[in-house]
């Protein structure tokens, strides 16, 4: 990813019950220019979140109090804040459950500090100000600069609430409706993975996105599956398009 310095110092909330690891994380993140706050218990996470208003949450899955999955759900209910899970079991259903409960990405222990920082940066860089741009896909209108997605039905305008990651995914697909994106391409463009990564990330988030933007998620019109290849955006209904060239 391009070296985009966060505006000011980004805040990271670390939710982990292992004191040594939490401290180490705080040290490393501080070195990389992040502010951190550490919470050791799941049931204290929400209060800390409301108080600290972090730009990203690092969340361990196994927590005393409330477990990580639950914390993740509660965070999602309140906010679209990027959530990166820390997990000791990359192969179990935990990962899928965590992603389904709203985590944007996960990183399996033991990880290299640089890897972690890269993941965090990839999530936080989305705060940058993009050029004003309006994209239409299906019956949706995406305001890229305003970070909003609206659906017009007759005279009613409905604003859909997407997390930054879901928004990113939708914009990525909608910008090139003629192109089929493989899961690997999406992992690279949306998640910032340069090497092959877990394609379950894409599958789970496409499901979550569909649940929000599709009239009938079983029969998607906006995010279409191309069997054996990947995904592509559905047909655009509104013909006029504000033509702002995206710059990467």
């Amino acid at each position, binding site marked *: 990813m391009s070296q985009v310095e966060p505006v000011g110092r980004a805040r990271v909330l670390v939710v982990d019950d292992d004191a040594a690891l939490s401290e180490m994380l705080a*040290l490393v993140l501080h070195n990389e220019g992040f502010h951190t706050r550490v919470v050791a218990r799941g049931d204290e996470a929400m209060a800390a979140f409301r108080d600290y208003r972090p730009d990203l949450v690092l969340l361990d899955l196994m927590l005393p109090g409330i477990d990580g999955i639950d914390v993740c759900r509660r965070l999602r209910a309140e906010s679209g804040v990027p959530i990166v899970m820390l997990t000791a079991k990359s192969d179990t259903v935990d990962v899928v459950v965590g992603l389904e409960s709203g985590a944007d990405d996960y990183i399996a222990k033991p990880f290299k500090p640089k890897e972690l920082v890269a993941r965090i940066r990839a999530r936080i860089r989305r705060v940058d100000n993009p050029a004003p741009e309006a994209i239409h896909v299906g019956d949706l209108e995406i305001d890229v600069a305003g970070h909003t997605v609206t659906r017009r039905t007759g005279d009613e305008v409905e604003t859909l609430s997407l997390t930054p990651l879901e928004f990113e995914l939708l914009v990525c697909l909608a910008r090139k409706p003629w192109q089929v994106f493989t899961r690997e391409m999406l992992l690279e463009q949306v998640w910032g993975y340069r090497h092959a990564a877990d394609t379950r990330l894409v599958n789970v988030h496409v499901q979550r996105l569909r649940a929000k933007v599709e009239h009938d998620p079983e029969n998607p019109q906006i995010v279409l599956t191309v069997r054996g290849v990947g995904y592509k955006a559905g047909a655009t209904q509104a013909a006029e398009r504000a033509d702002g060239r995206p710059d990467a």
Partner: protein
Amino acid sequence: MAAPTPDSRPSARERGSRLLTSGLAAGLTSWRRSIRTRVVVAIVLLSAVVAGSVGWLVMRQITDGLVNSRAQASITEAISETNTIRKQLGSAGSNDFDPETQLRQLVETLVSRGEVRGFDVVVVGPLAAVGATATEEGVRTTLGVDPASVPAELKRAVATEEGTSWAFTRITYPEPADRRSEPGVAVGSRVVLPSDGGTYAIFYLFPMDEEQRTVNLVVRSLLTSGALLLLLIAGVVVLVTRQVIDPIRLARRVAERIASGRLEERMHVRGEDDIARLAVSFNQMADALQQQIRQLVELSRVQRQFVSDVSHELRTPLTTVRMASDVLHDARDSFDPVTARSAELLQNELDRFENLLSDLLEISRFDAGAAALELHEVNLVDVAHRVVRDAQPLAAQRGVRLVVTSGTPCIAQVDERRIERVLRNLVSNAIDHTEPGVDSGAEPVVVRVGANAEAVAVTVRDHGVGLEPGQSAMVFNRFWRADPARARASGGTGLGLAIALEDAQLHGGWLQVWGAPGAGAQFRLTVPRRAGDPLTHSPLPLVPDDVPGGRLADAPALAHGRELP
């Protein structure tokens, strides 16, 4: 039988013979596999022999009795007839008729009496003097009777002896042609014709058609009752054997179900007979087995869980250590040389530790049966090139050249991550075992990719120390080293080949190794083009072409290493 294909429709005869063969085969199978069939057939055969012998004896006695009584009656009748004739002739005197007339009267009388009383007559004569029977002449018979019906023996006896002789014979009738010949008794005696003093032999032929009918009737009823008896015996045997065999069959089914993993299956115990005791013992055995198996399963589950838990528990502290080490490593330039070197060692050994841990986790995943395939169409040539490219730095460091040879793209449905890991393991293993090239004259490690219609194969050839006989079976063992003193330069964990084998088997493929002392070694990975298809043949030989006699040795028996069936 296989349905006939349109282009090879079998003729009716072929079909018939095939039907016969299959019927025969079914019969043989039933004979081999069914105790009941064998018991029933054996008992029915034995009963048939016994009933046949008894029937035959009964038949003999009845027949003998009938025939003898008939013979006695015939002789008595013949004697009385002869006496009557003699009396008539005696009262007629010698001059009343010429011999011709007298003889005709005699014969007519006899024939008419025979017709009434049911016998045929043959009169032969006049007989010549004793010892000159050849000149006999004149035979008169009842109409239609063949004079040859009188046995020659009897003729001779009558000619030479006084009194009455008899014999069994078959009475034949040349005309009318439709009358059948029948068994009978021939009785012969002599009379002297008063008119010319010539001796004439009179033969009475008593047919035994009555007796024949009786015997036939007896035979028929014996056969019928015998057949019915055999059927009855067969039925009884079927019923009786069912009582014994049904529980045995039940036991077999239960045993099969237990064998297929349904350990809770038991036999139903009824009564206290031998079968019930068999069931009780069987159930006890099943209980014992089930308990043992449960214990083993539990033990193995606990052990696997332990390995998995340990590996996972190690991850969190390892993450902290890793991060701390990274911090130290990044700052090593500002340390004194001893501390800086220590930070480097710490970092390198942590890499090894991490690899070992992730390999352990991978193995425990296989052991727990939690490994699953993520299949995609993958060109293995690309994978081989990628693996070799990634291994290039290590190879260069060790002075080993890597070469990939491939023809056409070799596309197969595989889990790319796993196949790449297998190849990575094989290549780094090959690099590990290649003697460092002294002056670039060392033989390269050759990765070859090939495919046929059903499978794709990759071979990795090295020219290292090779394998001693018997070692090829062990290379896939966990933590096994050919030479315990040998360092793992590439940082191998000792689990690489074990994991590679598991990966290959997960694909339904083979991972095999060939090796000879001093000649190096070659590993061969073969995976089916479509996951799950059976493998019969690998596109590449296991034994490298550059080895003398290599082609010959490419026999499955020499293909060390383990294959999935």
